[in-house]
């Protein structure tokens, strides 16, 4: 006789008996999750899964992405949804780990029956989410930078990349900076996929400008102390230093470079100059740094859709303007829902066709998805960080100095990606 017989001899296989009997070991702790397995009633809500790293180093960016994505959903619903069908955003924490993201995405698809997935904030995590979604034929909109996701190895017809890619941003910044600032170029590279992708983008752009690479220094991800790396760069006497790192790495390396007096010797350049990081790092560390961005709230002066987005965000957030990565969340989900409306259904193929064929303008001017790799073709804005004295208020941190116009010409060609 087993414990199973002991507890279930009289009453057959009712769920409660099973819980009490076979799961005795799990006890009270695990009993509550068991009860959650009441299959969700089939309703006609349009569900969008949104895995982002709410915990971990990019937590504040992720929370803002979720907030902005919710704005897009609320706007869609306020406008009547899809003939009365409302949309719902299901935010999950992927903890910035691809295994966790793969699990969470399976949960979203199997348990919550989402129609679409958007999100992720890491080059590696998005590849995992992409695999899970593509296998299950669920359209996925990535809102984080990556070159690999456009390549034939990872691209499927279900894959969409709303974020810019390192090739675009580093390329745009390089095309702007190299002719102006000089040909002797040094690289400080965070030693992981995204870091090297940015460096590659700079080098491609540098070919046309005829740059000379005088130093190339890699540092491990999440380095706090750059004092062993920076002197090697100083010694090479470059005109331009390309910081191919992200987030806290970018902030810490800039702070130390500033205190080493390197800003007087060379121009600092960052492909993805982040709004939140700049505000956290302070004006002194960032002043005069040139970088690229998908969006800065100052665009509201020149672009109507930006004005609309910034105003809506300000209303919800006590006057604070949205950040660049927050805007990705808004555009990723907003673009998806616009395509749902255009297609008139949530059928994956119909929505994909609508996304491929319909240009959209949600927050920064017109964008469209390139047919062969579903990369969002969009303008890259070149910005320069202001010094403390030039700031009108605490949010006024950047000056837009140039626009690298939306064009398929600045992307890697479809054949270079292995896509025909």
């Amino acid at each position, binding site marked *: 006789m087993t414990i199973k017989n002991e507890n279930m001899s009289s009453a057959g*296989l009712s769920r409660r008996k099973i819980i009490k009997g076979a799961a005795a070991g799990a006890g009270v702790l695990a009993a509550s*999750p068991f009860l959650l*397995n009441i299959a969700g009633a089939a309703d006609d809500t349009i569900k969008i899964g949104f895995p982002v790293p709410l915990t971990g180093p990019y937590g504040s960016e992720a929370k803002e992405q979720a907030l902005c994505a919710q704005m897009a959903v609320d706007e869609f619903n306020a406008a009547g949804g899809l003939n009365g069908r409302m949309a719902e955003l299901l935010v999950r924490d992927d903890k910035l780990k691809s295994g966790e993201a*793969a*699990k969470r995405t399976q949960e979203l698809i199997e*348990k919550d029956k989402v129609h679409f997935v958007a999100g992720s904030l890491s080059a*590696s995590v998005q*590849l*995992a989410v992409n695999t899970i979604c593509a296998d299950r034929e669920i359209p996925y909109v990535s809102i984080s930078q990556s070159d690999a996701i456009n390549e034939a190895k*990872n691209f499927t017809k279900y894959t969409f990349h709303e974020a810019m890619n390192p090739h675009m941003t580093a390329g745009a910044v390089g095309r702007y900076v190299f002719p102006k600032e000089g040909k002797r170029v040094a690289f400080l590279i965070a030693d992981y996929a995204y870091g090297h992708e940015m460096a590659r983008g700079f080098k491609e752009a540098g070919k046309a400008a005829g740059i000379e690479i005088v130093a190339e220094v890699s540092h491990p991800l999440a380095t706090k102390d750059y004092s062993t790396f920076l002197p090697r760069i100083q010694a090479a006497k470059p005109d331009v230093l390309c910081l191919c790192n992200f987030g806290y790495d970018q902030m810490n390396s800039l702070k130390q470079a500033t205190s080493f007096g390197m800003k007087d010797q060379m121009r600092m350049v960052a492909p993805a100059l982040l709004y939140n990081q700049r505000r956290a790092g302070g004006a002194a560390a960032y002043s005069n740094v040139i970088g690229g961005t998908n969006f800065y709230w100052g665009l509201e002066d020149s672009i109507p859709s930006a004005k609309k987005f910034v105003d809506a965000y300000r209303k919800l957030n006590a006057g604070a303007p949205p950040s660049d990565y927050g805007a990705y969340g808004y555009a990723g989900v907003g673009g998806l829902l616009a395509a749902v409306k255009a297609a008139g259904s949530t059928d994956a193929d119909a929505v994909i066709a609508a996304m491929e064929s319909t240009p959209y303008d949600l927050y920064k001017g017109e964008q469209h998805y390139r047919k062969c790799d579903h990369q969002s073709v969009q303008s890259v804005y070149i910005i320069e960080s202001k010094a403390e004295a030039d700031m009108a208020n605490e949010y006024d941190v950047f000056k837009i100095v140039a626009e690298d116009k939306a064009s398929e010409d600045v992307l890697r060609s479809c054949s270079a990606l292995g896509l025909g």
Partner: protein
Amino acid sequence: MNMSNLTGTITKNRVLVVFAFLLIFPFLAPYEALATDVLIYGLYALGLNLVFGYMGVLSFGHAAFFGVGAYGTGIAMVHFGVHWVPSIFIGILMAGLTAMIMGAMAIRTKGIYFAMVTLALAQCVYYIVYHMGELSGGEDGLTGVSLKTVDLGFTTLNIIREPLSKYYLVLGFVMVAIFIFSRIINSPFGSVLEAIRENENRAQACGYDVKLTKWVAFSISGLFCGLAGALSAIHLSVVPIESLHYHQSGLAVMMALLGGMGTFFGPFIGAMAFLMLEDIITTMTSHWQLFLGAIFMIFVLFFPRGIWGSILHWISRR
């Protein structure tokens, strides 16, 4: 310990009890992917439990076996186009080989030093795989381990579309492993393990080759964890680099402690409790680590036998 009839019955028929429970488990779990995860992590903690619970040696390096199992299987499938069944065995064998090498170096030490040496060696494995970018995908992890359908001869399982059939496919492997594990524990070899746990010097004085036994147990433990890793590669269709990280090693220790180290069913209970709690708490708050940590501390302080160990103890005292 004075065991009553019930605990005696459970212990005697432990494989059947586990099997019966796991058979109905997916209908109780919140969703199938989580149930499959519990299977995989239960097996992983079970493998660790052989050295940790039964032999009394704490290893902080078992992520290496889980990860090598996962990468071995994934790389065989993605880069060499090997069929998934032999791929799993390639993963298991590579994990076993890693365990043999790591074990040979680590068993020279004892206690905390053993834990530290295994931790260090596992980190070496992490960085080796990290830098094999061409094969392992490096930072991005290995993607494209997509096993979509499984031909069983009489029927074809679409494991992507039907997560339940994926669960039972994994369960098939896990049950074979559990059966073998039970036989190992019941064998004279298993008794030597427990003798080493209770009193290593005495076991040596009785004429057992303690070092050899430790090494063999460590290697076998690696095989089980390797299978868990191989199954996770198929389950997730990606192999993330963090499957080799020392967090992953800590996870197995935590699950074994939570469920009850040195008990047969404990690792599965631990994996279940941990993963389900994590699943629920993370959807409610982003401060999930705080809650999990508190729960873990409560168990270590007040229920050192773990969930399953405490229940067995409680039943046997009635």
